[in-house]
Structure formats: structure tokens, C-alpha cells
């Protein structure tokens, strides 16, 4: 239920980019979302579309790239994709690891014209 707040943040950043580039139109907005960020993609797209109506971002398209969490094992050093029901290293079963990606929401690219 916090997707509206996230959409508002994204719109704020993209609006600044559009202003800096004196854009008349904004195309794709590429956003990476980690599966651990607890965001519902469908709700986020819906919120983005609704709050950009009638603004300079109207018609912009939110492209969500889901990022699967990855970790590095502290014991064997292997990097691996995390299984969502057990984050332990699948190679050596060590319980010590460091999460590398999968928690963040980042705006990667904005198309302007």
C-alpha cells in the first residue's frame, strides 16, 4: 500500500530530469525494483499513470525491471541468487553471507524528447 508514495518519489525525480533537459515529452522510465523491496509492480504502474495525468509526464511509461536478490557467501566466496525461502549459500550451506542486491528501488534511465 505504499506504492503511491514510491510513485510520487519517482515522478519527482523524473520531473526534475525533464525540466533539466527542457523535455516536451517523456518516454520510458526504467526502474529497477529488488524483490526484497516489497513493492507491487501492478499497483506502482497504476499509481504512476494516475498521478502523471495532466502533467508534463503524461504518457510516460514506467518500465519495471525486477531484481532478484543476490548474495555472496562469507565462507566459500561464491556469489549466488538467493532462494526466497532460505537465503543460505546453496554451494556450501554456510549460514554467513552478505546480501549484494535485491532490496533497493532505483531509477536507471529516463527517455526525454
Amino acid at each position: 500500500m505504499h506504492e503511491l508514495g514510491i510513485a510520487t518519489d519517482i515522478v519527482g525525480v523524473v520531473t526534475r530530469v525533464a525540466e533539466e533537459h527542457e523535455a516536451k515529452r517523456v518516454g520510458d522510465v526504467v526502474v529497477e525494483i529488488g524483490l526484497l523491496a516489497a513493492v507491487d509492480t501492478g499497483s506502482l504502474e497504476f499509481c504512476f499513470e494516475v498521478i502523471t495525468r495532466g502533467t508534463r509526464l503524461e504518457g510516460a511509461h514506467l518500465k519495471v525491471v525486477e531484481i532478484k536478490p543476490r548474495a555472496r557467501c562469507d565462507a566459500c566466496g561464491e556469489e549466488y541468487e538467493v532462494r526466497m525461502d532460505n537465503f543460505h549459500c546453496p554451494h556450501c550451506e554456510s549460514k554467513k553471507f552478505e546480501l549484494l542486491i535485491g532490496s533497493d528501488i532505483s531509477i536507471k534511465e529516463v527517455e526525454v524528447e
Partner: protein
Amino acid sequence: MKRVELEKKVISANEKLAQANREKYAKEGTFVINLVSSPGSGKTRLIEETAKRLKDELRILVLTGDIMTENDARRVARHGVDAVQITTGGACHLDARMVDEKLEPYKSRPFDLVIVENVGNLVCPSSYDLGEDLKVLLIAVGEGDDKPLKYPPMVTASEVLVVNKTDLKDYTDSDPDAIVENALKIKPDLTVFKVSSKTGDGIEEWIEWLKSKLTQKRQTL
């Protein structure tokens, strides 16, 4: 169309405010926890038991978050600590702005311990930094031993797991150790406490840990 590449983390407005609060409390050596759980796991009761035991020793401020009612702040204030209610009206989590607004009247007063009780919800509060030192995740016996596996983002966002209501163990099919085991599958370095706010079992360890974290924080001053 021209492509503009950027690497911008979202929820930045929230994080900026949270960071400002964190810096303020770092300067004063105040230890701040953000208590998260499902509704009904016993956050308020744990805070009450904590307040009872520490109120003469520490200056404590409690912020309690709910959609409606001032009930929790009233419950906590009975124990002689400062307590402020945040009613979100509908929002399913607290954000740094809500916390900052409520903290405003207290900013001139120093505190040792600030406890923020989040809205009962195992999803959204994981994404919102409130400027705390760490999140404490509370899961009650009887809630479902696999809760940590169902809500992994909350487990990864937390540093501490408190399994509460251990007194219910014999009345349910729930096993406190299974809750812990499942949580450690997601985050192996969690600090774990098993407590019963009702009987007081395990509460002393929790209190000692809080005091030791405060001492640690003071040493960085």
C-alpha cells in the same frame, strides 16, 4: 528520444529526513529502535514491560503508530514515560515525516531511549527508514511459525528478532524455536530473544541488551 541514465535511489525524500533525525540522535547519544510486527504480536505490551523496568534509570520517549485511536500512547504513558500517538488515518506504515513532526515538541529535551512502535504490518514498514539505529522484529508464538519465510523483506530489514508470548507454547501447536530457525534461514546474524511479556520470562535479557546498546552508542560520542 534521448536517454538519460541515472542511478537514483527512490524514497530519497524519506531517507533524507530519516538521516537528519539519525544524526541528531547520534549527537545526543540517544538509542532509537523501530519496533515492527503483525498487529497483535505484543509490541505495546513489550514496550510497557520495558518502560516499567527502565523508567527510573533512563529518559524514555515512546511513539506509537496506529491507523486510529490514542489507546497505545495512553497505555504506555501510564508507566511514567513520555508517550505520543501517531494516528496515520489509513497509512499502513510510519514514514520519517510523521515521526519528525511528532518529535518536534520534544527536540529540545534529551532522551536516552526512543522507541517507535510502527503500525502493525509485516510488509510496508520494511521499506521506510525512520532514522532508527535498528529495527526490532517481533513475532508471537501462535502467529504461524513460518511467518519469517512468508515476509522475508521484513526479516532482512531487521537486526533483532523477539519471539514473544512464549507462555502460549503449551496451548498452541507453535514452537518458538521453529520461528527462530526460520528467521535465521533469511538472516543468520539476527540477535534473538525469546520472551513472555506476560510472565516476564526472558525480559531481563532484552532489558540488558537495550542497556548495552545504549552504552555502546554513548561510547561513540
